[in-house]
């Protein structure tokens, strides 16, 4: 995290329609390296769609998403390679049901290592790890991450045997295993029983402290206040207001934001 304050994601005039449903109506914003952006807004305002356009899980209808200098909406861009640097955490975890916890975490790193080995040319002087070494390293990383969240004894369990909070924490370290430049969170605590929300927010706060760039869609106002560098209010497909949490919560300007805050606070 040496180059803090460098622009990491530059979004310009982003539009997204599903058929005739115009969901994103021109969003422009810049997310700096190390910045924590929290997005709030009413249901259906396009928060998930915005987040999913950032890593092209949804293809934007028009506009540009520049990630670390690479144009993601360009169809010549290898989106898979870019996504390896952009973690994503879902409301419903989306852990691989047919893989154990540790396999879930090792899956993508091993996939990438295999690709590297396949693409490696003999003439290339920089060596790559052979598969065995890559697997060992992936396992070591995965074990260290599991120890970090205190779930090392669940390494060989299947996701279905975990609690919601445990699943979400595994999902978070699964994205961490790729050593991403940014992690996108889409309502990571909304599907959890109330007593499990804390453990997930705690882990997210740790990541924030370590300087991870984070874009978080959430209804957890406490988290926004405590962690965000910038809070964004989204309504009807637009960024209606953005400010520091202090300013955002104590001195909201847009009437729709005032109304929204009066309902949720």
């Amino acid at each position, binding site marked *: 995290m040496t180059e803090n304050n460098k622009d990491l994601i530059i979004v310009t005039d982003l539009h997204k329609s599903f058929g005739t449903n115009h969901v994103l109506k021109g969003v422009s914003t810049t997310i700096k390296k190390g910045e924590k952006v929290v997005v709030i807004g009413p249901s259906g305002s396009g928060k998930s769609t915005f987040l999913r356009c950032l890593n092209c899980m949804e293809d934007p209808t028009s506009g540009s998403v520049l990630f670390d200098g690479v144009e993601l909406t360009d169809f010549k861009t290898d989106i*898979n390679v870019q996504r390896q640097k952009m*973690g*994503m955490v*879902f409301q419903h*975890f*989306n852990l*691989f049901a047919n893989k154990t916890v540790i396999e879930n975490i090792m*899956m993508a790193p091993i996939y990438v290592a295999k690709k590297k080995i396949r693409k490696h040319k003999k003439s290339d002087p920089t060596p790559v790890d052979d598969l065995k070494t890559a697997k060992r390293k992936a396992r070591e990383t995965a074990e260290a991450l599991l120890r970090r969240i205190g779930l090392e004894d669940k390494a060989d369990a*299947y996701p279905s045997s975990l609690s919601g909070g445990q699943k979400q924490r595994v*999902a978070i370290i699964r994205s961490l295993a790729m050593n991403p430049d940014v992690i996108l969170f889409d309502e990571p605590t909304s599907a959890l029983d109330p007593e499990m929300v804390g453990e997930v927010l705690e882990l997210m706060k740790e990541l924030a402290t370590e300087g991870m760039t984070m874009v978080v869609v959430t209804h957890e106002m406490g988290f926004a206040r405590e962690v965000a560098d910038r809070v964004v209010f989204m309504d009807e497909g637009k960024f209606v207001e953005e400010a520091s949490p202090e300013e955002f919560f104590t001195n909201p300007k847009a009437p729709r934001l005032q109304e929204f805050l009066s309902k949720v606070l």
Partner: protein
Amino acid sequence: MNSFMVKVNRFIEVFIEQGGYNEVLTGLKNTLLIAVTGLIIGIVIGTLIATVRVLPKYKLISRILDKICTFYVALFRGTPMVVQLLVFYYVMLPLICVKMTSVSVAIAVFGLNSGAYISEIMRAGILSVDPGQMEGGRSVGMSYGATMMKIVIPQAIKNILPTLGNEFITLVKETSVVSFVGATDLYVAFNYIGSNSYEFMVPYLVMALIYIVIVCLISLGIKLMERRLRKGDRK
């Protein structure tokens, strides 16, 4: 009862002393070989077709492939297996001047045919897997194909295992049509014994029993496999 015993004795005589069991063993071997190999080829073809058919359709190439697969499935589901077998053996092979044994022809036709049926089963299986599984794979940077192969299809196969088992049982039973192109299966074998002993009651009875035993064994196998897979989930 006495006359039944006479028939049994006659059967045993032909079955053992005149080497009828050799025919039965060949028939059994062919029946299982055709059904098992057909099923494996069918799973491969069916998985490929199903993958094409659930592909997002915004590229022209995937739309064309989809049309081809739809045609293939309609063709093989819309004609009886016997007809496919006869056409393959007596029309296609002479036309392209290729010689194949009747058993290989049967295997090929069973594979192509079950591929069409399994593709529909597999498509339903793939659609039954939570779309979040694909999203999870894509979000960590795995390609569509890799996520499909490693995450979605294994779960789809688990979901459709009972239906696949039924398809296997159907294939085993349908092998009785391969006699149309001159391959020996259980029916041909017992028919042979019947003709040599001039009585068909016992041979056909034994044949029916063998089919029942095979089908029961397959059903048992599927149950065991399902139980093991479910255990894997809970561990």
